[in-house]
């Protein structure tokens, strides 16, 4: 009798573990999961006084790309003219303003506001649509070094952005500065019940 009770208790415990597991895993966003995959690249732009902005290059998977190319490259010349580009921007990119362009820039633990983007461009390479855009920012670097973090991720999980890239690009007045970077996990920015940790790029800019 005692053994039977023990067995029942064991089963109940197991059931509870399953129960909790199902609850946690099954109760995610109802209809959202990554449908789009993006390889994100980044170049920082240096000026006389420090960092002036960040160029981003998003290489979309060929499924999302097929939509962009089929629907918006109307003359099928493999390029997006100004008129086509305007439509692509309105139909597939402008709304990302509501999502901070999936970009978060932090300095000393504080998020720097992203007020807009410039230079939006789209190119097609080997069946992939590549979006490029410039995020202006002002980071003055004094005599010492300055550091900031940039993370690129979609909290809603509609798409997954592979970030950071293996190599950080540097543009502008590169001769005036020395730049170091390394990836850094950001558990404080975790999303999807803490299961997804964005990995930011920690960037240090200093005089050579």
């Amino acid at each position, binding site marked *: 009798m005692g053994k039977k009770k023990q067995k029942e208790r064991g089963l109940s415990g197991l059931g509870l573990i399953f129960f909790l597991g199902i609850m946690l895993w099954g109760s995610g966003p109802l*209809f*959202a999961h990554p449908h789009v995959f993006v390889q994100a690249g980044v170049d920082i732009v240096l000026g006389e006084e420090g960092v002036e902005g960040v160029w981003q290059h998003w290489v979309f998977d060929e499924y999302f790309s097929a939509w962009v190319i089929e629907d918006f490259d109307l003359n099928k010349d493999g390029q997006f003219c100004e008129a086509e580009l305007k439509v692509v921007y309105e139909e597939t990119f402008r709304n990302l303003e509501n999502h901070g362009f999936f970009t978060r820039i932090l300095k000393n633990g504080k998020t720097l506001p992203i007020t807009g983007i410039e230079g939006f461009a789209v190119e097609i390479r080997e069946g992939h649509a590549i979006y490029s855009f410039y995020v202006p920012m002002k980071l003055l670097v004094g005599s010492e070094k300055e550091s900031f973090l940039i993370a690129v991720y979609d909290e809603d999980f*509609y798409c997954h952005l592979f970030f950071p890239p293996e190599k950080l690009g540097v543009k502008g007045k590169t001769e005036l500065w020395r730049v170091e970077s390394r990836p850094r996990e950001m558990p404080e920015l975790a999303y999807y019940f803490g299961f997804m940790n964005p990995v930011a790029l920690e960037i240090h800019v200093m005089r050579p």
Partner: protein
Amino acid sequence: MKRTVFSLVFLLVMFSLTLQSVHSASPFRPGPAQKEEPVSSGVSHLLPAWVRDTGGQVMGRLLLWQAQIRQKAGGYAREIRENPWGSAFWSYMGLAFLYGVVHAFGPGHGKVFVSTYFLSRKGRVAQAFLMGGLMGFFHVFSALVLVLFFYFIMKSGGMASVDGAGRSLQQFSAAMIALVGFFLVWRGIKALFDGEEQGASGCLASSHADTRSLFSLSLAVGMVPCPGAALILFFSLSLDILLAGVLAMVFLAAGLSFTTSLFALLALFARKAMGHGRSEKRRPPFWHQLPPLAGAVCITLLGIFLFFNPL
């Protein structure tokens, strides 16, 4: 009684977790202006670190698999264009099934509903498979119909129109979910206070899964088109491999259904293991009727929440 309380508590926990993130519309498409401040997960700090770490590792693996499967499938799709019935065709189908299985392991695809449904009422294995299967097929079928309709009949472009229709369907789906939930609540309340529905087994009918509610809930949840399926089909169309694309949707749906059914089975097992399955021989006490009612309330509230928060 203790287990019933556990059931109720966990249903409520699940409900509150679910309400936190129900985004589904494509962020790329034009939508209502709403500046979103990035926020970290509200409940993550409540979870033990090992749960977060394990969940993170599983999610990382799932993401990688999905990306790899999609990349490989893309290559096979191009081969199909050159040789429609070669080995690439079956590889494409196989990967579509595999993608469905892995894709549905991630968040979404109605797992919360099948789990709630089967955790809160007694069901059979066949019913678990039926509900998982229906939900998966409805989810993909909806995307299939929309893509083909807009592409061939309306000739109004592909994903943009599908996405727009998907948003409308989402709200309709939410209303349907709420309606089904109301129906289940009504039955639950009736069963609580009225012994007339007592079945031959001695259990009240409302505490059992039944085909009508199961089908209704599956349709209500599954009618929202799967954006992933729509993108894959649209990709197939762009390569001019329509037949392979449509057949791949069948395999994809089978894959989604497999995983969703698995969650339904786990819910059945969890319920049974917690002792709810032992109440057949005698009339269940009042307490045993509460989980089905709580589950029905959760489904209703979720439907209402989704209806008023179309995203």
